[in-house]
């Protein structure tokens, strides 16, 4: 498996409200490049268009203008070309309640038409990696929230996808479980070499996971594109405050200019990307 790069150019998504007939601009001309194998956290306040961006990247929605290209192809237009290449982890586990943990994990392989012996081998491997080997025959309602999310993560990794997308995947869990799962997710994503994008509204999560943090304002305006490597652990509190200020004021905080040759906080991706 090789990781894929993502190029978002002039992306605009407008929804029409059926009741009022008014246009709602969810994303207004977003430009972003994500290099293959990069782990990027996208942060923004509720309603800033993060989830719309997520749906556009998976190919469930089509852009009103502009494009998302993954290795030159569009996830919506070339929908079927991405079979087995994109995997997702959602806020809710979204497990099929009539399937056991094992059957949920092997679902993507089943859809790909992979041989049953391979399905078994790979599903069991990922269930073990996520510490679920004793719960392979458990139905989702028999598992805790954290365990269900582990199954959902195993289901995403079983494909060994080129692109991994997580939408508020750990936000609903308690802090200890969320931190543990974040760590596992990060380690596995690095091990697989997938390009991973985590959409979150939690700054701690974004700082702890991403190589890069993309801060989105209203209508998904790019407020800051931060290279986390430029921020030593001791400065993470400052980084957190700067991102918070950026989100609150809906404009880049000057402190975020660190490490950028042009001194700018937003716009083009950082030099390392």
């Amino acid at each position, binding site marked *: 498996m090789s990781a894929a790069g993502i190029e978002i150019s002039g992306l605009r998504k407008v929804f029409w409200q059926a009741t009022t007939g008014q246009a709602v601009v969810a994303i207004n001309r977003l430009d972003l490049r994500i290099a293959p194998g990069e782990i990027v956290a996208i942060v923004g306040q509720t309603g800033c268009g993060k989830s719309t961006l997520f*749906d556009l990247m*998976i*190919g*469930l929605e089509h852009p009103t203008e502009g494009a998302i290209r993954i290795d030159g192809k569009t996830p919506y237009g070339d*929908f*079927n070309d*991405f*079979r*087995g290449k*994109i*995997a*997702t982890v*959602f806020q*809710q586990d*979204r497990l*099929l*309640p*009539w*399937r056991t943990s094992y059957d949920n994990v092997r*679902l*993507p392989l*089943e*859809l790909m038409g992979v041989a049953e012996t391979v399905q078994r081998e790979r599903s069991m491997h990922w269930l073990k990696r996520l510490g679920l080997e004793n719960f392979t025959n458990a*139905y989702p*309602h028999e598992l805790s929230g954290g365990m269900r999310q582990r199954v959902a993560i195993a289901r995403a990794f079983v494909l060994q996808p080129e692109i991994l997308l997580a939408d508020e995947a750990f936000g609903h869990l308690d802090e200890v479980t969320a931190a543990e799962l974040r760590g596992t997710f990060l380690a596995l994503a690095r091990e697989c070499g997938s390009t991973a994008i985590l959409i979150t509204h939690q700054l701690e999560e974004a700082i702890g996971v991403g190589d890069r943090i993309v801060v989105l304002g209203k209508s998904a305006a790019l407020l800051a594109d931060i290279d986390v490597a430029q921020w030593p652990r001791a400065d993470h509190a400052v980084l957190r405050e700067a991102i918070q200020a950026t989100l609150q004021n809906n404009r880049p905080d000057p402190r975020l200019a660190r490490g950028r040759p042009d001194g700018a906080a937003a716009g083009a991706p950082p030099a390392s990307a």
Partner: protein
Amino acid sequence: MHPDVHDIGRAGWFSRQAVVSILVFCVVWEALSYLAPTLGIPAFAIPSFTRIGASLAKITMFDVVVTLARVIGALVLSFVLGVVLAMAMYRSPRMESYLHPLVRLFMAVPVVSWILFAVLWFRGVEFRIAFVLIAVCGPVFLVDALDAMRGVSKELRGMMRSFRPTTLQYFTKLMLPAILPGLITSWKINLSLAIRVVTIAELVGAVTGIGHQLAVAQELFSVADVFAWTLVLVALLFLLEAVVARFERRVLRWRP
């Protein structure tokens, strides 16, 4: 509802309350059968259990099997037709906008009218009965399946689509298992509906089956025979419901 009432409702057929109520009914019936002449009621109107037993002993299995086959055959056809049409309507809102008014119209037509249409339009007895059963039960399956499909959560649909399944995979791996509880409920409703409809249809236009035997019993003024065949119908319905319940427990064991 008072909790005790709820408990009695769920107590099942072998509960003390059920046994007592059935026993009381039987005792009252038997007493009435002996007292009928003195009350000015003709003796044949309330036959004793001895006479009903004699009628039960004369039950022809052939007619039971014929009725059962008609019910199951027509239900399977209605089910397939209903679910396939529901899938097509789910996939195509335009098709739904055209078909939905027709389905509602079909559902509003009384069973007796369907039977009369069948008698007037068709010659073959089997075809007439199948037509009536499909016309009555098919729309129920269709509406229930369509409602269940619409009830599948947006989240699960999004998750499934993100893995890019084929149309067939989307329906077999997501939609069908998701709507199965609704379909089983629909089978339960349609079973009792089909037993009633097939009996009326056989009563009017068939020369075999339980409905036909009921018509014969009516011509002979034999309440004992009517009672016996009715018992068979009720037993048949309970048997079919038990089969569906067993299937339900088996396939929906994933439910908490």
